[in-house]
């Protein structure tokens, strides 16, 4: 408790182009998640600058940040974070509820989002009635139903078996291919390898940049086993 402030990120300067697919790797505590939260406007840098679509995020007030999160950014988490009491369909509806989308349109869009991920048959199931892979795909449907331009994924396959993980990665790549900017934080070199670019963070600094394949070889000894 207390003590000196810890700098989670130091001198991170990076530009991510629209439609890019970036993986962020690094050991625990290296600042990966902090970076992701700053990109997602959930957290603000104590100093420095984050420009999104040319706008300085630090200048936005709470209401504007809410709008950015609502319309520009989708989030996917390692532990899915579905609302347990709501069905798959209702979970997908949640962001639209807060955006004030009328009921009928909401259900239609949620169905379409679930359908495109092959989950229409599971629409009325609650999260505890779904497999891990299905849950993550429901979360993906929820993250993309508002039509964001950026999808931020925090260890999206960290809690899945390899088959489900591969399925989720396929979906992510498909979305990326259709223009969605994708930033994936991962421990898993197999996930990172599929990205167009990889950033390796250590102690809050970018120590390496490169393509997925190159990084995988170089950092073979760097990545600890996934948590």
């Amino acid at each position, binding site marked *: 408790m207390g003590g000196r402030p810890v700098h989670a990120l130091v001198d991170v300067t990076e530009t991510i182009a629209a439609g890019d697919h970036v993986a962020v790797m690094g050991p625990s505590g290296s600042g990966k998640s902090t970076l992701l939260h700053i990109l997602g406007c959930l957290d603000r840098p104590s100093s420095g600058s984050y420009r999104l679509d040319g706008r300085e995020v630090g200048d936005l007030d709470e209401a504007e940040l809410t709008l950015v*999160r609502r319309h520009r950014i989708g989030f996917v988490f390692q532990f899915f*974070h579905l609302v347990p009491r709501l069905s798959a369909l209702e979970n997908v509806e949640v962001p639209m509820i807060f955006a004030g989308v009328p009921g009928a349109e909401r259900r239609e869009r949620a169905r379409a989002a679930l359908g495109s991920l092959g989950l229409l048959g599971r629409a009325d199931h609650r999260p505890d009635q779904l497999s891990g892979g299905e849950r993550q795909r429901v979360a993906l449907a929820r993250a993309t139903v*508002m039509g964001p331009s950026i999808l931020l994924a925090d260890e999206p396959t960290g809690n899945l078996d390899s088959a489900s993980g591969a399925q989720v990665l396929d979906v992510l790549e498909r979305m990326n291919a259709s223009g969605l900017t994708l930033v994936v934080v991962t421990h898993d070199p197999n996930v990172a390898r599929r990205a167009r670019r990889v950033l390796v963070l250590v102690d809050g600094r970018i120590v390496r940049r490169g393509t997925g394949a190159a990084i995988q070889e170089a950092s073979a000894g760097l990545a600890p086993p996934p948590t």
Partner: protein
Amino acid sequence: MSPRDLLRFALRALVGHRLRSALSLLGVSIGVAAVVVLTALGDGARRYVTNQFAAIGSNILIVFPGKTETTGGMPGFGGVPHDLTLDDAEAIRHDLIGVEKLAPIAMGTETVAHGERRRQVAVVGTTHEMMEIRHLSVARGRYLPPGEMGRGEPVAVLGKTVAEELFPGADPVGQVVRIGAWRMRVVGVTAHRGVQVGLDLDDVVVVPVATAMRILNRSSLFRIFIQVRSPSEMETTRQKVVKLLTDRHREEDVTCLAQDAVISGFTAILGALTLALAAIAAISLSVAGIGIMNVMLISVAERTREVGLLKALGAGRRQVLAVFLTEAILLSTVGGLVGLAAGEGGVGILTTFYPDLPARPPLWAIASSFLLSVAVGGVFGVLPARRATRLDPVAALAGR
């Protein structure tokens, strides 16, 4: 976020924790039900007393022998009041202008018989005017015939119960009954009235006052009922009555009370009692509010991740606040409604067992207890809801 969606979202959250929601809802329900039942009880008591006296009529003065203050002195002097006689009653009627109607009453118990059937009942001796003063009505025949107070005709009017007991299945009008050793012709039967101010008016026999004094061997009247012309003349008439009787008896040995003074005394006491009961019940309602706050705090603590998630999904501060506040208000409102229903049920049970008690929750109690229950949710829900909005989404998502 439309109000309907907000309500649905909050409802889903509450239904998700059935037991916990039900228990805190129960707290509010008990509070509201307590307010409803207790105020119904207090107000019922007040209305009961008012009805009892109101049945006697309005602008009524009651004269009875004896002073309400303690008398003493030498035995045989002062302590024994003079009789209140028919002459006194006549004097009041003829000498005082404010008096509109007057009915003397003599009372005692005697056996009433018809053939083999006999019954011990209260015998009330009075005059024709009693009917108007107490708003009585007859079911058959007529009431006592009008005429001089001193004329003791051998006629009787039976109460409903007495008539049914002595003449089962038959019309008693025109028949003869024995009251003690006296034979009386039945001229009428009064309509059902029930118990009033301690006397079951269905279980009495009414005879002319002079007759009653003879039957019962009384020299003094029990009461004199005086109906005064207008409410403004009540106090002056009361004083004139006391002065007149004091002059006639050469000492002040009667008491004269205004009906309304008695009623307003009772009403004030019972009104205060009702308020006190309501206050006690309101305390239980505010305790229920703390229960709601507790539940909502637990709910926020348990759903930190959800709060973080909602923020990440684009829920604004106000929306998060609205979600949790709506849950709290929903909880207390439903609790209030359940409490109103339970309270009405409780009052229903109460009146089933005590049908004479006009126990009805006053409108102000229903309205204020319900509004209070809603407000309780709003007030005690604010703290937990604000706590939810202040959660740092990053920390909340990490579940820290």
